[in-house]
């Protein structure tokens, strides 16, 4: 029942959401979760003309849980190479135990 898996987390500019989802789905992931985020890093580009003075969340935080470790690496590499030269973002991963999932 309990299954070891990798949770890959990508924090990047909201502008890229659609394209990143395309990468994730193309990699064959069984799903993903998106949460609104904001933040600061070392590149820190403003992605849009959206007002800064309102409470906008200009980043997204995308999590992909996968039981295949190399899939997480593949997704990270593709996103990193395709977008991170010009866009803000960070990618990290850790180990989780999946207790319930419809794809198990």
């Amino acid at each position, binding site marked *: 029942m309990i299954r070891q898996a990798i949770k890959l987390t990508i924090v990047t500019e909201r502008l890229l959401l659609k394209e990143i989802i395309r990468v994730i789905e193309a990699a064959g992931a069984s799903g993903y979760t998106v949460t609104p985020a904001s933040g600061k890093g070392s590149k820190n580009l403003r992605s*849009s*003309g959206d*007002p800064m003075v*309102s409470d906008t969340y200009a980043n997204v935080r995308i999590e992909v849980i996968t039981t295949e470790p190399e899939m997480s690496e593949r997704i990270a590499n593709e996103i990193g190479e395709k977008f991170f030269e010009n866009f803000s973002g960070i990618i990290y991963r850790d180990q989780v135990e999946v207790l319930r999932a419809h794809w198990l």
Partner: protein
Amino acid sequence: MEFILDFLTRFATQLQSPTLGFLIGGAVLAALGSRLEVPDAIYKFIVFMLLMKIGLKGGMKIREADLGDMLLPALFAVLIGVIIVLLGRYTLAILPKIRTEEGIATAGLFGAVSGSTLAAAMAVMDAEGLTYEAWAPALYPFMDIPALVLAIVMANVYLTKRKGDAGTRVKIWPIVTDSLRGSALSALLLGIALGLLTRPDFVYDSFYEPLFRGLLSVLMLVMGMEAYARVNELRKVAHWYAVYGAVAPLVHGLIAFGLGYIAHVTTGFSPGGVVLLSVLAASSSDISGPPTLRAGIPSANPSAYIGASTALGTPVAIAIGIPLFIGLAQVVFASA
């Protein structure tokens, strides 16, 4: 001399217009660290309402208009969009410390059009009784899209050449559709279509029209706060962006005024239409432009172009440009 006095009086009056007042008020609040906030949902909805209003009105009036008259001004609008980008390409973008592609992106943003500046101009002109052709606001996309497309194409040609590979050609059509899909142009064009094809008079008169000025005042407040917030971004980039942001709107507006004058003489384009064309030229895109440019010229730092536009370009276009072009029109066309 008299003109300058006249302009100064007009400018002083303009300072009392609530449009400008809210803009300045927003900047002052932001500078004082106020926690006042206009929620994002409200901001987005206001932009929708203003462009829908402008579109509906245009659409309703276009029905009666002779669209042949629109030909020359539309052509000029395209031309102005192109001129602005070329001008920026061969002035701003070649300056030292300016990365060429960022200079081009900035010129593209200033060639594109701001719905809120347009709305502000229409409010002032309505208050002054200065009329224009019904289809004049519909010149928006004719200037906006060519400017963005040209900027993106030129920047990519430049970048490709620099890299030395003559491989990837830039596709134009996706940039055009991306522009058209932006929320501002979508709302404007939908409004025009609905004004043209349906009978929205009642809903226009009972809703979009009466709320226009008030919603605009709130939007000006946001833009004022925004302008102040972006000053910091502007500080981080080369000083030339600040110079460009302050000067370009007026230069662009005057070029458009000249072309508009030609249209006036040759095809009877109205004085109000000339002013509106100048404002379209002077304005720089604040809503749809930035994401389109970001996607099209990803290596250009958006702080450069957004900073120049939001912190300086838009306030200058609204505070100085609008009264200047109106004053000019009154001087130039009074004698005509």
